[in-house]
Structures are given as C-alpha cells and as structure tokens.
C-alpha cells in the first residue's frame, strides 16, 4: 500500500489523552505500537509450528459469518480437532474472525478488540462484504474493504462461506503461519499512521485512545 505523508498525518492525529491533566493522562495510553522482531530461525520455526496448531479464536461474532461458526465449532464440522478453540477475551485470543460486513459502529469495536489482542495476531475475513462490500457496496453504514482498517491475513470469499470453505481457510492460515508469513502485527505497527487515518475517516466520534495498549 502507498505510504501517506507522515507530517501531515501527524498534524491531524490526536491522542485521546491530549489536553488532560497529568494524573488523568495515565488513564489512557499514548504509546505507539512498536515492531517486535521474531526470534532466531529455528526457535521461530518451532514456535510457529506450535502456534499453527493452537489457534484461539476471539469470540466476537461481528456479522452474519458468526452463524456458520456455530456449525464449525460443533459436532458436524468439529474444528477443535485442529486445535482451534474459542477464547472469550481478546487478551488471550490470537485469531480474529471478521464475520462478514462491518458497520461503522462495529468497526470501532473491531479496532479496539484487535488492538487489545496480544501479538502475534491473525485476522481472517469472511465473506464478500469484507473484500469489496459485497451486496452492501452502496450502503451508508458498512465499510467496503476491511484491509484499510486492520491488516488481514486470509480472505474467505462467499456469502456466506460454507464451513468447508472456513476449514480450508484455516488450513491456508496454518500454512502461512508455519512459513512465518503472517506478520500482521508488525505490519500494523509499521503503517500505524495510515491505518489510524483510515479509521478516523469513518469513526466520527473517536472517544478511545489511539492505541489500546
């Protein structure tokens, strides 16, 4: 993606704790995300092997796609065979599934949850609506491309994608993790200003810290 001019972004970027007294500043975080380098070669390979076999989904059904997650987690297509389990809190989850279209009110929560997840974190985007808007391309309340707001590792097309497609997408994500290609966390840290700019363009009432550290 093309990099924007940094200093003009700096002008329009404003941290949530600006203009607050010192003792309230600490309530918000103004720490920018920093890039974390992977471990040395063989250790990283081993760790990636373990990460790919223990994927923890964030239990956040952001859209229609959450409907097909239920058959996926339950007895018909049982993905816990592959070490995929749901975690109810973003602090512990490592995979974020964007279940279809994301309305403006949801993208705010998506950004918060994504930033609260501890890296390395992976994002799977379900459905056509996350790729190009799908059948909501002309809606005033749903975004068109999710990858302008958070980095995406794997897309699963379809409306709505079948559980088999979801399993295929999970396998694709596993391969990418084992190859060490899923580096969305560092990608987010590198293009932080660009992502923030895109997010702030649609999230009008920005009443949260710029980085939910």
């Amino acid at each position, binding site marked *: 993606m093309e990099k924007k001019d940094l200093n003009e972004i700096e002008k329009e970027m404003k941290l949530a704790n600006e203009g607050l007294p010192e003792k309230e500043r600490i309530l918000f975080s103004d720490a920018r995300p920093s890039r974390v380098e992977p471990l040395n070669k063989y250790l990283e390979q081993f760790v990636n092997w373990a990460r790919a076999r223990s994927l923890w989904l964030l239990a956040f059904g952001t859209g229609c796609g959450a409907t097909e997650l239920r058959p996926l987690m339950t007895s018909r297509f049982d993905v816990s065979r592959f070490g995929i389990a749901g975690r109810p809190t973003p602090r512990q989850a490592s995979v974020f599934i964007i279940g279809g279209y994301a*309305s403006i009110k949801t993208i705010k929560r998506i950004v918060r949850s994504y930033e609260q997840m501890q890296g390395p974190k992976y994002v799977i985007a379900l459905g056509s609506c996350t790729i190009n808007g799908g059948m909501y391309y002309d809606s005033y309340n749903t975004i068109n491309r999710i990858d302008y707001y958070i980095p995406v590792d794997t897309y699963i097309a379809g409306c709505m994608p079948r559980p088999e497609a979801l399993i295929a997408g999970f396998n694709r994500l596993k391969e990418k993790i084992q190859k060490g290609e899923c580096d969305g966390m560092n990608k987010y840290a590198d293009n932080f200003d660009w992502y923030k700019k895109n997010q702030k363009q649609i999230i009008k009432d920005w009443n949260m810290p710029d980085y939910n550290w």
Partner: protein
Amino acid sequence: MNRDSESKYKGFEADRSKYPQMEKDKPVIDLESQKFIKTWQGPQHPGVTGNMSVELIINGDEIVDAKTHVGYLHRGFEKLMERRRYIQCFPIVCRICVPEPDTNEYCVSAAMEDLAGIVVPEKALWLRTLNLEMSRVGSFLMWLGGQAGSLGMGAISQWTIGMRDFWLDLFEEMTGGRVYHMYMIPGGVRKDLPEGFRDRTRELIVRTRALLFDIEKTFFNNAIVKARLKGLGVISPEMVTEYGIVGPSARASGIEDDIRINNPYGKYAELDMKMITSDVGDAYARAEVRYQELHQSLDLISQIMDKMPEGGKIQAKLPNVLHWKIPAGQTYVKAESTRGEHGFYMVSDGTKYPRRVFARGASYTHAISVLEKLAVNISISDLAALMVSLHTCPPEIER
C-alpha cells in the same frame, strides 16, 4: 400445559424495592459511591445473542439498571431497497434475519403479490409453507442450543446445532442455499422438490424426535434448569399487550396470538394445528412452549409431506420483472417466525422501485423495552438466559 405457577406478576414497574432508592420513578445511581459497577455485556461477550450489547449497572451480582444498545449490524436495508428494483430486492431481504431467513422472503414476496394482485398457484403455496416450517425447525433447534448453552450446558447446544446442520442439508437440496435460500420469489418459488426428498425429510424427522426425547430428559427434567429458569423474567398478560410482545413469549403468558391460526397464510388453514399456550409466563414456560412448538413444526412438516400434491405449477406468470411496475398502494404482510410476528410494510408509488419497505422484527420490542424492564433486579448470571429466553435476534432490530 398449565403448570401450577409460583410466578408472581410484578406489574409494570420493575421491583426496585431493594436497590437503588427511587426518586420520582428514576433510580438514583451515582457511580462515585463505591456501590455500583458499570459493565457492558457485549458486543464482544459470549453471553449475548448475536452482536448487540447491554449496558449494565450492577450492585454486587444484582443488576439495578440495564440499557440495550443496538446498531452494530445496521446495513440500511430499507435504504438499499429503495434504490433496487422489486426483483432485485428479494436476494437481499433474506439477510435481514440470519437464523431464519425464509420469513423475510415470504413476507416481501407476499407483499409484492398483494400489491400487484398476483395469485400464487397451489403447489407454490405448499412449498412455501414447507420451507417456512423447516426454517422454524432450524431456528428452534438453534434457540434450544442457545438456551442450554446460556446455562453452561454445552452438550445440548452441540447436539442441537449438529442436528440443525442436517436440516440445513435438506435446505440445500431444496433451494441450493445452505443458510440464505432465496427460494420464494414473487409469484411462487424457484424450483420443485428433488427426488426422494419426502423420504429423507421423514427420516430426519424421526431422528430429530429421537434427539428431542433425550433433550427432554436431560434438559427439561433437570433440577438445576428448573431452579434457574422458573420465576425468571415473568411477563404478565397485561404487559404483553402494552409492550407489543408477540409469538411464543406472548403465548407463554396466556395470550392466544399465533398468526398461523389467527390470520392463516400459505396453506396453514388446511393443516390441523392447535394453539400452544401456557399461563405462567416465566422463562421456563417460554422454553416449554417453544419446545412443544418445535414438536408441532415437525408434525406440520409430516402433514405437509402427506397432503402436498406431487406435480403442478410452481410459478405464476409474471411480467418482465426487470421493468416491473407495481401499482401504487401500501400493504402490511406478516408471518409467524420463531420469535413471533415478522411483518413487512411496503409502500409502492407506481414506479419500478419500492417507495418504502419496512421490516418489523419481533425482537424490536423484545430486545429493548422488554429486556431493559425484565433485566432489573436479576442476577448478572441470569442475563444471558433471560436474553435467550426472549429469543432476541439483533439483525432484525436494526436491519
């Protein structure tokens, strides 16, 4: 199903006798005094149905104030339909309610037929009724799993959702779609049943009944389930009419309100079914009513399988739907979804585009007014169970 009830009707105003003090029917809650915590249940919370959130002010484990926030799933369907032609509307309406899309399809097709004066052939009506009942079965199974899961009984939800998946397979045979079907078009349905569909459906009905037999033993006769659900979220008959409560939630309070019987549509007039009501009005009564309606839906499906004619036209003759002008007028078509009355209000102005389409979901009042009222003075442990027992479905609130 008249269980001798220990339910006490609380009247309209929630019982705030304990906490907090009321001043001119407003609770005095100051978060500065260390008595209250403000938490959000949802949108990122396993205990909410779908993608909605409830803003709670709790005192210990007791909820003293609740406020529902919706809009996380708002796609602006009504605006989108205003700039789509009539035939382009029906692929998107089924997205309005995810677990039970066919009611939307039926309502929008029936509204167009009502405005344009199209007569639907017999076979198409049978197929529509069959499709609606099958979608009711799927949604009820999903609800049963949710009700058990909200009480922490994971096994039941695994069983029911696994069984619902076989019903989705039947949908796939019938319509080609697994979750979203786009089966009913104005003037009829898209295609006829495949070969041997009736036998497979009968065999699946037998399997579903066998599963429900287990569930009745493990869930409905479970002492802990009764201890948790009885007396939770009592809805009084007066409250039903005042708050616009419909469907099983109204029937569990003794109001005989079933659109399939009161205002029959499709082929429901030719099927024999009886109104299932209870007089208790708490969450357990709602669960029992829904459970019996699940059996009723299975029974209706087998009736349809017996009574439905083999061949026949499945589509009425339509004009060229791409520039199809519907005469001006307004209508309101409603159908009985698993949550209650699901209606479409369509206004046409004689052009190729509808002037206004409004989808009335049953959760609209259930999830906001009723939930905010019933959630007061219950333990935070019961909020998920209460939400599921009202069977709220967020996407049909905000469309």
